[in-house]
């Protein structure tokens, strides 16, 4: 994503439609415009209220030259334009386009409006093809949802949503977030907490599932993490939690499509929730061209939503929307990630937004904005057993600097 450089100082924004398109009902346009704003309010604390009189964002459907020196060009070509916050945030749509609602015919008003409002809020065009803020109109998408790139962009400007409404903010319209509902397994939580991870806190991989839980895989077993330690009732067998999956996994992550990917040796598996999503395993060289076998770990980096693979001293960036998905400039040295060691055990982004790297019995917290491991007290690396598994007496040699926690 790209930020233009300005943003609104307030989060409660008002708007009005001063000029409507000729062929659509006003009420329908009103609803579509509000839906388009809801795309952005679903992921931030921004709110958009229709108002008369003076407003933050004025919306007009115009033809040809319409007073701003940037004339529209008739059907096709330029569909709309909008001004960044520093220039007022107004959005203009070419009235000569065949604007449509929930239809494959014409140009979808909702999608174009949501894109333009991204400009009104301070986002520039993105070079991520799948992003809403990519400059080209891609046709009507009935299952439209914001790309992670768009979400990262808008949250870089206005922060994450702190209230707990649905991300789409538009439940009755059936558009917005359309992620598959994962096929989750009810997991009874009973019994005492397992302490085997305290004895040996190394593990194979850590990842977030689509339903928001964090899991650790080690050998043939898995554990679910809580905010402070591990959940009671674990470990369980990977083969029971993810039928068809093998043990001793190298790496795992859940992508923005809601599907989880597991890697081992030269193979990978894809799951939708707890159900294998087709005929797996497949070769890494087939589904992740450019990525080597026997990787150390993989993660989706919150900084740009792209997939990063790590092995030894090197890392690869994988972007499924690009051809080739791995640029010729890769692999690069892990030393580019300031403070992160080589030969990693695992890596992932936790629910607090930070990226964590694990090596042996310790971990590092990476600051995506500073692009370096955080300089904190106690310093990193810290003991995984103590800070992640809730172990009070971490074995000798694994505490790192956590003793200074006091």
């Amino acid at each position, binding site marked *: 994503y790209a930020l233009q450089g300005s943003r609104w100082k307030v989060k409660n924004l008002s708007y009005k439609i001063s000029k409507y398109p000729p062929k659509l009902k006003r009420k329908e346009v009103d609803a579509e415009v509000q839906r388009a704003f809801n795309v952005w309010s679903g992921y931030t604390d921004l709110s958009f209220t229709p108002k008369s009189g003076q407003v933050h964002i004025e919306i007009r459907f115009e033809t040809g030259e319409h007073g701003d020196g940037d004339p529209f060009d008739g059907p096709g070509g*330029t569909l709309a334009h*909008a001004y960044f916050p520093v220039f007022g945030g107004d959005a203009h749509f070419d009235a000569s386009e065949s604007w449509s609602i929930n239809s494959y015919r014409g140009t979808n008003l909702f999608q174009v409006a949501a894109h333009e409002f991204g400009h009104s809020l301070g986002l*520039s065009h993105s070079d991520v093809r799948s992003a809403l803020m990519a*400059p080209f109109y891609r046709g009507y998408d009935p299952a439209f949802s914001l790309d992670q790139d768009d979400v990262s962009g808008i949250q870089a400007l206005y922060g994450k949503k702190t209230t707990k409404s649905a991300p789409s903010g538009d439940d009755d319209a059936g558009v917005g977030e359309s992620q598959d509902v994962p096929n989750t397994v009810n997991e009874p939580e009973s019994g005492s907490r397992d302490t085997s991870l305290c004895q040996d806190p190394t593990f194979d991989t850590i990842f977030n599932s689509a339903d928001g839980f964090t899991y650790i895989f080690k050998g043939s077993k898995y554990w679910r993490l809580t905010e402070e330690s591990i959940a009671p009732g674990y470990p369980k067998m990977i083969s029971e939690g993810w039928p068809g999956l093998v043990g001793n996994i190298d790496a795992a992550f859940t992508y923005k499509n809601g599907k989880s990917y597991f890697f081992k040796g030269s193979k990978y598996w894809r799951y939708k929730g707890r159900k294998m999503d087709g005929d797996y395993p497949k070769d890494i060289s087939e589904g992740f061209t450019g990525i080597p076998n026997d990787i150390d770990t993989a993660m989706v980096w919150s900084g740009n939503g792209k997939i990063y693979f790590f092995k030894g001293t090197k890392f690869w960036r994988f972007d499924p929307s690009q*051809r080739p998905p791995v640029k010729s400039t890769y692999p690069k040295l892990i030393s580019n990630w300031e403070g992160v060691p080589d030969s990693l055990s695992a890596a992932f982004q936790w629910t607090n937004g930070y990226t964590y790297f694990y090596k042996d019995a310790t971990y590092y917290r990476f600051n995506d904005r500073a692009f370096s491991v955080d300089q904190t007290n106690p310093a990193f690396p810290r003991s995984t057993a103590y800070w992640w598994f809730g172990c009070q007496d971490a074995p000798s040699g694994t505490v790192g600097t956590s003793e200074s926690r006091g």
Partner: protein
Amino acid sequence: GAVSSAPGGSSAMLYLSQYGYLGPVKANSSQLLDESSFRKAVEDFQSFAGLTVTGELDDQTMETMQLPRCGVKDKVGTGDNRAKR
């Protein structure tokens, strides 16, 4: 050399100018443009649009330039023209 006289070149120049890859271009006058500047603009556009970067106005590039799109510039404040600062 002047490249604006090549077939499709002038419309591509206007497009690249309109969306921020080149400096302002006047539609009603012929202009001389350094070939490397034009090539770089095409490369920048191809890279931004996720196309194979060739620097040439190939079919794929011309087709992409004809797609319906947003009128806001792709390149906003790249700083290319204030490198000496």
